[in-house]
């Protein structure tokens, strides 16, 4: 995978249907807190909230074709922190090194453009791939929220990871 094939750009209204499809894919939403399915009204309402904000969420393009969405959620302007979110919507493109390229770009973008001091990541106990992925990027495991997620008929821990700008 060539780094230059992957670009991040701002979200357009015409992306909403695609984002909606991605987010309703069980192989994607099992790794975030979402528990209901989303429709286009949800997407349009959400788009209104992000339209005027400072570009916290971005579309991932591979050779100019949208393949996913990424950015920062839970931004706290007081302490300059935000949590990373990455969805590679085209699941055929998983495990091809795209995540690594996107995360590298996002860390740069978060610290430089959004002027964050701290980038966080929330990872569910069963998401071993993400755990390894963020540890590779030197994210530190800070907190284990015990049994904080109910999914598939049982409780799971949620891990909080973070990377500080000074690191």
């Amino acid at each position, binding site marked *: 995978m060539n780094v230059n094939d992957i670009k991040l750009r701002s979200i357009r209204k015409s992306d909403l249907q695609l984002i909606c499809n991605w987010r309703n894919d069980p192989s994607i939403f099992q790794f975030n807190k979402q*528990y209901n399915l989303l429709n286009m009204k949800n997407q349009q309402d959400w788009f209104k909230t992000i339209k005027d904000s400072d570009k916290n969420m971005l579309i991932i393009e591979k050779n100019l074709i949208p393949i996913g969405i990424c950015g920062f959620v839970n931004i706290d302007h*007081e*302490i300059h*922190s935000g949590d990373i979110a990455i969805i590679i919507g085209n699941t055929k493109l998983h495990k091809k090194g795209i995540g690594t390229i996107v995360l590298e770009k996002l860390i740069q973008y978060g610290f430089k453009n959004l002027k964050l*001091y*701290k980038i966080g990541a929330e990872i569910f106990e069963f998401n071993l791939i993400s755990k390894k992925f963020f540890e590779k990027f030197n994210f*530190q*495991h*800070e*907190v*284990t*929220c*015990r*049994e*904080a*997620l*109910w999914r598939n008929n049982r*409780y799971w821990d949620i891990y*909080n990871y*973070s990377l*500080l700008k000074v690191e």
Partner: protein
Amino acid sequence: MINGKSISLRSLEFEDLTKLRDWRNMEHVKKSTREYRLLNMIDQKNWFESIHVSSPNVIMFGIIKNNKLIGVTGLTYIDWKNRHSEISIYINKKNWQKTSDAKDTLLTIMKYGFGELNLHRLWVEIFETTPENILLFKKMNFVYEGASRQKLWRNNKWWNSQFHSILSKEFKNK
């Protein structure tokens, strides 16, 4: 009324808000909260409105002793799906963390959270600016879950916050 041993809990009324504002603005209370501004009555009224929406994620009580309002407690950030919530408490007294009323209040609110709301996990985020709060929750058998770095900028430096929690199966005083 919800009765503990030495205190009881009642619902808050609009008329309590002035008192609550003054307490929250006091230095020994303010240093434990996320708030960096001083609160005014507009803040208080907005907050009071916000906890009276349908299916709220905040449930607050006044702490009563000898018919007097001595503090505020409650459950905040209630997550009805994943069955967890943060505990909030302050009492209008210096070193309140060491009083038996603080412990009785926490027991009462924990009983309410587990026994009545069927929550699974009660947690607190405590800034390292207030070690006395950490000590209090340790005494209540909360388990340390880790520290989040650079969570508060105060007095010209960064402070961590600590997370502590107790699960329903760990709570003995049902």
